[in-house]
C-alpha cells in the first residue's frame, strides 16, 4: 500500500509526486505513457509574466520546475525589466526534448517514488473517503491519499474543423470513465476547451522574411540553487511575423468550418488565449496580428507557430499558414487543434486542494480548471505537500494572497470558481508589489524548511542572504557621498548632483540612482541578489510599506476561521445572495468570505458578529 498515488505525469503530477516523496511518503506515479512524463504539449516555453514568478516560488518551496527549466532552455528573457520590480518575470524557451528528460532524471533520483504505466478509470471510495484507484484492467491499487492531475485527458475530444476525435493531445489515449465516476461520487463536472497552433518544419521556413527575437544579455536563473548552464551567447533565436489581409480573408471565408464557429465545440475556451479566428472576429478592425516562431527543440526540425491556434479543417490551415510571409512554402508537421476536456468544479475544492466531498482526494492542474504548465506545477506542489502533511497529521499549507502567486491562484480558484480556463496574470495579484521575482526565497524558503522540503544547506544560504541584506542596509546609512570628490561621477552620467552631503541610502531613494552607479563611488562588495534586494526595498520603500500595511489589515480577518459546521441558515439578516454563496463555497476564513462576489461588507459584519456570539470567536 502506498501513502500517495498520483494520477498523471504532467507538470502538476511530477511536482506532486516528487515533493510527497521528499517529505518521506511512499509514492506511486501512474501515467498512461512513460514516454510522456513532463510532456509540453503546447508552447515550448516556461515562465512568462506572473508565471515566471510562480516558477521561482515552486523552486523556493523545494519543487522541480525551476531547476529543470534552467537545465533545458536555450533562450532566456527577463520580461518587464523597465516597468518596475514587481512585474519582472523570467521567460525561457525550453527544449521540449530536454525538459522531460531532465524531469525524469530528477524523479528517478527520488528514492520514495515509483513510476508505473496505468490508466485510472475509477477510485476506491468508502464512506466518501478515497482509498486508492482502479485501473482500466480492473486492477486495484490502494493508498492513503490520491492526487488527480489528469490534465486534459478526462473524456478529451480533439477538434479539427468538423472532425471530433475522442483522444488526448497528439493522439494519446484518454480516460473514458473517470470523470463520469467522479460525477457519481458527487463532484460537479464542467467542460473546458483549449487549443494549440500548428508546428512547422524548420527547413521549409524562410526566416529572412521574419524579424529576429533574441534573448537577454544578462542571464538570470529560475532556481535559487543553480548557476547558468550555458554561455549567454549560445542562445537560440525566435522569430516574429504577422498575419495579413489575405490570412484574415481566408479565415473569414471559412469561419463556419471551424469547430468553434461551426458549432462543433461545447467547452468554454480561455478568453486570454483566443484562437486566431476569435481574434479576427473580435478585433475586426486590426489589420494584422502578431505571431511568433519558436523552436520546439534544438534536436527537432520543428517550430511552434505561437498566436495561430485554430480549430479550422486541415486544408484551410494549409491556406492560412501559406498566406503568411516567410511561410509560403511551409510544411505543417502537426496541425492545430482544439481540445475539449472535463474538469471538476473548483468550488468543491478546499484551499488545501483536498476535495470537499471526497476525503483524501487532492486535485491539481487542468482538472481544477487552470491552464498553463506553471499554474499546474504550482498546484501540484501544494497538493503533494498537503497530502503529505495530512498523512503526517499536520495542518495544511495554505499560502496567503500576500505570500505567493500560488496563494492567489488557489484562493481565486476555490473562492470564485472557474468559468474559462484560468491563467495567472500579474493583474490578479493585488499584492504584486510584495510578490516579486526577486524575493521568492525570502517569502517562502522558511516555510519550505519548516515542512521539510528545503534542506539545511539551502536554508543556511537564505539566512546568510538575509544577514547580508541587513548588513548592507546599515552600511548605506553609515557611508555617504563626498561632494567634492564624487561630483564628477554624477556629471559623467549626467545625473543631478545632490546639493548637500547625503548618505547612500538617501541617494539610492532617488529614482534615477542605481546601485551600479553607487558602486562606482563606493564599492559595496555584495552578491548581485543582495544589492538588487536592497535597491528595491530602499527605492520603493513607500510603496512597499503601504502594501505591507494593506496586507497587515487583512491579517486579522484572515485569521478568523469559520467553523466547518456553520449553518448559514441560522445566521439571521444575511442577504439571500450572500447566504446562498456562503453555503455553496463554505469559505475557511472571514477574509476568504469577503472575497466572494455577492457577499457585501455588511454580510461580513453580520457573520463576524454571529461567529463571536456562537463560537466565542477571538
Amino acid at each position, binding site marked *: 500500500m502506498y501513502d500517495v498515488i498520483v494520477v498523471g505525469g504532467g507538470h502538476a503530477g511530477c511536482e506532486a509526486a516528487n515533493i510527497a516523496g521528499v517529505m518521506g511518503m511512499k509514492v506511486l506515479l501512474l501515467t498512461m505513457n512513460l514516454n510522456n512524463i513532463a510532456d509540453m504539449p503546447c508552447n515550448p516555453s516556461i515562465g512568462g509574466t506572473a508565471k515566471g514568478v510562480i516558477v521561482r516560488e515552486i523552486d523556493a518551496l523545494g519543487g522541480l520546475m525551476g531547476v529543470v527549466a534552467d537545465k533545458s532552455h536555450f533562450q532566456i528573457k527577463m520580461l518587464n525589466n523597465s516597468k518596475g520590480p514587481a512585474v519582472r518575470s523570467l521567460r525561457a524557451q525550453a527544449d521540449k526534448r530536454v525538459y522531460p528528460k531532465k524531469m525524469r532524471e530528477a524523479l528517478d533520483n527520488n528514492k520514495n517514488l515509483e513510476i508505473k504505466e496505468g490508466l485510472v478509470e475509477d477510485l476506491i471510495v468508502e464512506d466518501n473517503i478515497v482509498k486508492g484507484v482502479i485501473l482500466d484492467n480492473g486492477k486495484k491499487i490502494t493508498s492513503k491519499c490520491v492526487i488527480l492531475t489528469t490534465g486534459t485527458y478526462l473524456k478529451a475530444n480533439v477538434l479539427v474543423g468538423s472532425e471530433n476525435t475522442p483522444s488526448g493531445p497528439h493522439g494519446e489515449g484518454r480516460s473514458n470513465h473517470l470523470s463520469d465516476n467522479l460525477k457519481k461520487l458527487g463532484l460537479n463536472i464542467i467542460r473546458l476547451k483549449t487549443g494549440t497552433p500548428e508546428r512547422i518544419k524548420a527547413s521549409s521556413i524562410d526566416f529572412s522574411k521574419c524579424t529576429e527575437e533574441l534573448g537577454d544579455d544578462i542571464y538570470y536563473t529560475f532556481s535559487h540553487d543553480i548557476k547558468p548552464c550555458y554561455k549567454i551567447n549560445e542562445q537560440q533565436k525566435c522569430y516574429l511575423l504577422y498575419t495579413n489581409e489575405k490570412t484574415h480573408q481566408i479565415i473569414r471565408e471559412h469561419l463556419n468550418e471551424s469547430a468553434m464557429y461551426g458549432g462543433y465545440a461545447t467547452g468554454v475556451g480561455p478568453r486570454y488565449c483566443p484562437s486566431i479566428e476569435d481574434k479576427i472576429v473580435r478585433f475586426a478592425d486590426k489589420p494584422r496580428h502578431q505571431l511568433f516562431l519558436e523552436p520546439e527543440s534544438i534536436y527537432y526540425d520543428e517550430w511552434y507557430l505561437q498566436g495561430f491556434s485554430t480549430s479550422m479543417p486541415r486544408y484551410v490551415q494549409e491556406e492560412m499558414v501559406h498566406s503568411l510571409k516567410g511561410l509560403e512554402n511551409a510544411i505543417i508537421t502537426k496541425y492545430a487543434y482544439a481540445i475539449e476536456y472535463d474538469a471538476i468544479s473548483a468550488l468543491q475544492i478546499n484551499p488545501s486542494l483536498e476535495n470537499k466531498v471526497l476525503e483524501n482526494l487532492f486535485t491539481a492542474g487542468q482538472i481544477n480548471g487552470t491552464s498553463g504548465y506553471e499554474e499546474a506545477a504550482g498546484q501540484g506542489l501544494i497538493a503533494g505537500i498537503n497530502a503529505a502533511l495530512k498523512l503526517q497529521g499536520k495542518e495544511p499549507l495554505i499560502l496567503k494572497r500576500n505570500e505567493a502567486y500560488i496563494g492567489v491562484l488557489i484562493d481565486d480558484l476555490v473562492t470564485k470558481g472557474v468559468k474559462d480556463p484560468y491563467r495567472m496574470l500579474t493583474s490578479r495579484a493585488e499584492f504584486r508589489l510584495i510578490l516579486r521575482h526577486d524575493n521568492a526565497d525570502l517569502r517562502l524558503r522558511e516555510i519550505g524548511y519548516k515542512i521539510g522540503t528545503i534542506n539545511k544547506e539551502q536554508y543556511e544560504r537564505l539566512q546568510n542572504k538575509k544577514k547580508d541584506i541587513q548588513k548592507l542596509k546599515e552600511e548605506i546609512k553609515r557611508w555617504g557621498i563626498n561632494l567634492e570628490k564624487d561630483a564628477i561621477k554624477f556629471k559623467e552620467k549626467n545625473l543631478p548632483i545632490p546639493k548637500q552631503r547625503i548618505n547612500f541610502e538617501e541617494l539610492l531613494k532617488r529614482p534615477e540612482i542605481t546601485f551600479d552607479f553607487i558602486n562606482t563611488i563606493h564599492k559595496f562588495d555584495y552578491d548581485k541578489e543582495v544589492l538588487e534586494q536592497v535597491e528595491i526595498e530602499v527605492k520603493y520603500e513607500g510603496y512597499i510599506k503601504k502594501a505591507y500595511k494593506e496586507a497587515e489589515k487583512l491579517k486579522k480577518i484572515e485569521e478568523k476561521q469559520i467553523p466547518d459546521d456553520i449553518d448559514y441558515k441560522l445566521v439571521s439578516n444575511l442577504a439571500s445572495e450572500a447566504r446562498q454563496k456562503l453555503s455553496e463555497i463554505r469559505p475557511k476564513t472571514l477574509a476568504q468570505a469577503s472575497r466572494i462576489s455577492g457577499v457585501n461588507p455588511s454580510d461580513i459584519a453580520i457573520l463576524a*458578529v454571529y461567529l463571536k456570539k456562537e463560537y466565542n470567536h477571538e
Partner: protein
Amino acid sequence: MEDTICAVATSRMVGAISIIRVSGDEALDIVSHIFKGKDLKKVASHTINYGHIVYNGEVIDEVLVSVMLKPNTYTKEDVVEINSHGGLNTTKKILEILINCGCRLAEPGEFTKRAFLNGRIDLAEAESVNDLINAKTDMARKLALNNLTGNFSKEIKRVRQKITDVMANIEVNIDYPEYNDIEVVTNDTLLPKLKEVKSDVERLINNSENSKIIKEGIDVAIVGKPNVGKSSILNRLLDEDKAIVTDIAGTTRDIVEGSISLNGFLINFIDTAGIRETEDVVEKIGVQKSREVIDNADLVIIVLNNNEKITEYEEDLIKSVPKNKRIIMVNKSDLDRKIDLEDKYILGNTVSDKGLDNLKNEIIKVLDLNNLMNKDLTYASNVRQLSLLKKALKSLEEAIKNIGGYVPIDMVEIDISDAWKHLGEITGEVYEDELLDTLFSNFCVGK
C-alpha cells in the same frame, strides 16, 4: 490592524457642541497631526485637552480633545474624541480633514460592532448590533443610491472608465510584453490622459462643493418694510445660535448675511439690504429687488409690524410669495396691536428671550426639517463622496508627479489604481475582474 474610523458621534440637532469620534490604532497619530496644543501622544489617558484644529496652516476650530487609550474605551481601541463648536460646516470640515489624513468614515453601527468584536459588549447585545448593522446598512445603501443623482453617477462612471482604459493598457503591456503591436503606454501618452482625468475630478469636486446639500444649506430671505425689525430678528437668531460666519464659496457668497444651524441643517439668511436702504423708492426698486430675492430663496419670512396698519406694499409682498414658501411673522408683539390681517401668521418679538421660538418652530414646520432629519445619512454619504473624490484627486496628483521621472510604470500605476478604487467606492460598483474584462475586450492577445 483594522482601519481607523471616524464619525460624528453626537446627534446633529442644534447644539453648541458636536463630538467627532475617532477609533483605531492610528487615531492618536492622525488627530495629533492636525491638533495644535499639547502633544496628544504624551498626555495621560482619559484626559481632555484644549487646542485648535489646524490644517494646511488654517485654523479650523477651537476644540477640546479627549484622549482615551485602549483598552478602557468604548471600542477597546485607542479613541480620540474632538469636541467641536458644532457648527455644521466646521464639524463637516473636521470630518473631511480626518478622512484626508487616513481615517475611514465609519459604517453605520461600526463603533458598536467593534465594541462587540473586541469583547466590550456582552453577548446579549449581539442581536441588536446585528439588526443595527443590517438596518442601517440597507438604509445607507438606499441613500447612497438615491444620493447619486443620475448625472453625478454617470459622470463618475465616465471618468472612471477613462482610468480603466488607461490601466487596462498598462496591464496589457505588463502581462503581454511581447506584443509590440499594442500601444505601449509611455509617459507622453499617459500624462495628457491623466491630466484630463484630473481636471474631470477637480470639476466634480467643485460641483460637489457648490452643491446645495453639501455646502449651501437652505436659503431664507427676511423681507419687509423698513423698520419692521428685520435686522433685529436676524441678529437675534444669529446671536442665539453663535452664528457661523460663513465662507461659503460660489455664487451666494456675497449675499449671505449669516447662517445658523437648525435641526442640524444649515439655514442661510440672504441679505436684503437692497430693500432696506431704498426707503424713498420702495415702490420702484424695492418690489423689483424683493422679487429677485423671493425667487431665489427657499423660504421667505415676511415681517410685519404689530403696531402698524398693513400697507399696500406689504399686501403685494404677501401675494407675491406662494403660501408654501412663506412665513408671515408679525413682529413687536410686545407693543399694542394695530395690524389687521387675514392670512395665517405667527406672532413674535425680539425683546423677550422666547420671542422668536414661534418663528423657529414655524421654519422647522414649513421646511419639514423634522422629516428631513430622518435622512440623516444624506449628509454623511456626501462627506464620504466628497472625501473619496478628494482622495482620488490626491492619488492622481501623485501619479502625475511621478510620471516623467525614473519611477517605473508599475509604481505609477499604484497611484492610478488608487484613484480608480476611490471612484469605484463612490458608485459602489466595483466588480471582480472588471479590469480584466476591459483588458481582454480592448486588446487582442493570446497564444
